[in-house]
C-alpha cells in the first residue's frame, strides 16, 4: 500500500534578522556569541554494546554504541592493524521536516577520519571496532556532537586511544563569529569551521572549513574552537570519572 504524497507544515517563518542589517542581533536562546550550549553526557546508555554514550547539547541529542573489538567480516583481507568502522544514522523524526537527513550522508566518513587519528589501531589487529551513532534530534552542530559522544563511547568500551577527541564548530555570519550554532543559525551562515581536537596532546585530528573566510578570521575562529574543545574535554573526563566511581 503506497503512502499518499504528503507535505510538511510550513512553519510561520520568523524574519531572519541578518546581523548585516541589524546591529543588535541576539542569539535566539540568549547566549553570547562565544558561549557554547551546556553539555549533558552520560555513559553506559546501551547495555548490549561494549561501550556506549549519550550526549545532549541543547536540543541536539545523540546516542553512540561501540561494539568490539570483534571479528572482521570474512570478505575483508588480512590486516595487521585493526579496523574502525563508523556509521551515522539520523532518526526520521530528528529533523524539522521528515526525510531531510539525506543532506548528511557524509557524516559517517567524517566521523571515521576524526577518530582514526586518536585510536591505537595496532592494539587490536585482525579485528574491527564498530562505532554506530544515532542522532535522535538534530538541533544544530550535529557532527561535533557525534564526534565527542563517539570518543566518549570508545573510552567507555575500553578501546586504547591516545586521547579523548572533543569537537566544536564555529559559524561566520556577516562580521561576527558565533560558536556552537543552533539549527536556525546554521541555515543563515556564510561559512563554517569544524575542528576535532585532542586536548591533552594539543593535536587536531580533523579540520573542516566551508564558505568564504579571510586569513585573519580563520586564526580567530580556530582559537575559539580549540578553547571550547579544551573545556569540553574537561567535562568529558569528569563524566568518565563519575561513571567509574559510581560503579565501584
Amino acid at each position, binding site marked *: 500500500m503506497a*503512502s*499518499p*504524497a*504528503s*507535505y*510538511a*507544515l*510550513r*512553519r*510561520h517563518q520568523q524574519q531572519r534578522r541578518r546581523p548585516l542589517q541589524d546591529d543588535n542581533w541576539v542569539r535566539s536562546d540568549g547566549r553570547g556569541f562565544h558561549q557554547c550550549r551546556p553539555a549533558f553526557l552520560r555513559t553506559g*546508555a*546501551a*547495555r*548490549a*554494546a561494549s561501550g*556506549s554514550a549519550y550526549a545532549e547539547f541543547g*536540543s541536539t*541529542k545523540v*546516542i*553512540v*554504541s561501540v*561494539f568490539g573489538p*570483534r571479528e572482521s567480516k570474512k570478505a575483508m583481507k588480512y590486516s595487521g592493524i585493526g579496523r574502525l568502522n563508523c*556509521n551515522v*544514522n539520523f*532518526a*526520521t*523524526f*530528528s*529533523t*524539522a521536516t*521528515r526525510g531531510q537527513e539525506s543532506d548528511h550522508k557524509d557524516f559517517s566518513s567524517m566521523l571515521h577520519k576524526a577518530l582514526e587519528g586518536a585510536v591505537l589501531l595496532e592494539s587490536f589487529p585482525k579485528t574491527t571496532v*564498530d562505532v*554506530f*551513532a*544515532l542522532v*535522535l*534530534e*538534530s*538541533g544544530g552542530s550535529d557532527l561535533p556532537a557525534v564526534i565527542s559522544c563517539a570518543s566518549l563511547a570508545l573510552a567507555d568500551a575500553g578501546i586504547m586511544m591516545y586521547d579523548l577527541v572533543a569537537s566544536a564548530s564555529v559559524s561566520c555570519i556577516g562580521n561576527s563569529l558565533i560558536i556552537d550554532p543552533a539549527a536556525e543559525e546554521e541555515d543563515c551562515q556564510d561559512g563554517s569551521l569544524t575542528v576535532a581536537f585532542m586536548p591533552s596532546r594539543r593535536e587536531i585530528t580533523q579540520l573542516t572549513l566551508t564558505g568564504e573566510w579571510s586569513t585573519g578570521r580563520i586564526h580567530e575562529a580556530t582559537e575559539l574552537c580549540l578553547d571550547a574543545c579544551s573545556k569540553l574535554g574537561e567535562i568529558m573526563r569528569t563524566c568518565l570519572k563519575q561513571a567509574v566511581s559510581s560503579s565501584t
Partner: protein
Amino acid sequence: MAAVKEDAGGRGGGFEGEMEVEAYRRLFPLPYYERHLLESVRPDARPLSSARDTSIAVGAVSSADGSALVKTGETTMLAAIKLEVMSPSQDSPDEGSLAIDFHMPPICSPTVRPGRPAELAPVLSKQLSDVISRSKMIHLKELSLVSGKAAWMAYLDIYCLNADGSLFDVALLSAVAALAHLHIPLVSLNDEGRIIAVSGDPSRKTTREVVNKDKRKLSLNSVPFSLTCLLHKDYILADPTAEEESIMDTPVTVVLDSLDCLVSLYKPGGAALALTSSLKECVSLTRRRVQELRSILDEALQSTEMDED
C-alpha cells in the same frame, strides 16, 4: 558427565566458584535455567510470573509532535510521531492516516549490522500496525482537517535503542504512549489552499480562520497492552529477556485492550505445544499486566500535563 558439571556449577565459593557459575551459564544454558525454574525463580531473582520494572517518559523528543521513551528492564524504545498534511483518498474523504514503522538500528544489538537490516524489523512493524489498526484505539476521522481536501498523515516511527527481549511489548507501549501524548498543532487554510501552521500566541493577529481549534489531542478508547510469555515444559515465564528467548523458543504474545477484548494472540511455532490451560494462564497473566501498565501510563501522562500547565 552432566553430574560432574552440575557439581562444579553448584559450589559458589569465592572467586573461583563464581567463574564456574558463569562458565556453566555460557556452556549449558538450558540446564542452568532449569535448575532455577525448579525453585520457581529466574537468574535475576524475578518470580516466574512477574514482569520487569517499566518506566515511561513522554515528550522526550521536542522536534516531534508526540513522543515517548519506554524502558522495561534493559529494553529501551523511543517512539515519535510527526504530522504531515495529505489529501485524503476518494473513498474516505473524512479520514486521516497513520503509518507505523519499526526500526532496529545497529546500536540496539550486536547482531544487527548496518548493511543488513534485522529480520525482526519488518515482522514487528507489520504486527504493530495490524494490532493498532485493528484495536480501534484511534478514530481516523479525528485526523481529518478539511473534508475531502486535507487530512493529517501521522508518521509513527519506533526506534529500538536496546534490544533485551519482549520487543513487541515495549514497542506497543511506546506507540500507545506517543499517541496519547500527541499534540496536534493549530493550523489554518491559506489562500492557495495549503495548510499552514499558526502560532498559538494570542497577541499575534491571525487573519486566517483556525481550522482545528478544538481538536488538539486524540481521544483514545480501548487502549491495547500486551505481554509476551515463554512456554517451556510446564513453566510459563512472563516478560522474557533476550537470553531466555534464545534458549526457550516458544513465545506467546497476548494483546488485551482495556475492555478486556482479545486483540491478538500470536504464537509463531515453537517446540512446546500450547494447551488450552496454558493459554488461559497467559491470558490471566496479561490481564494483571494490563492493570499495571495502565496505571504507569496514566501516571506518566498526568505528570507531563502538570508540567505543561
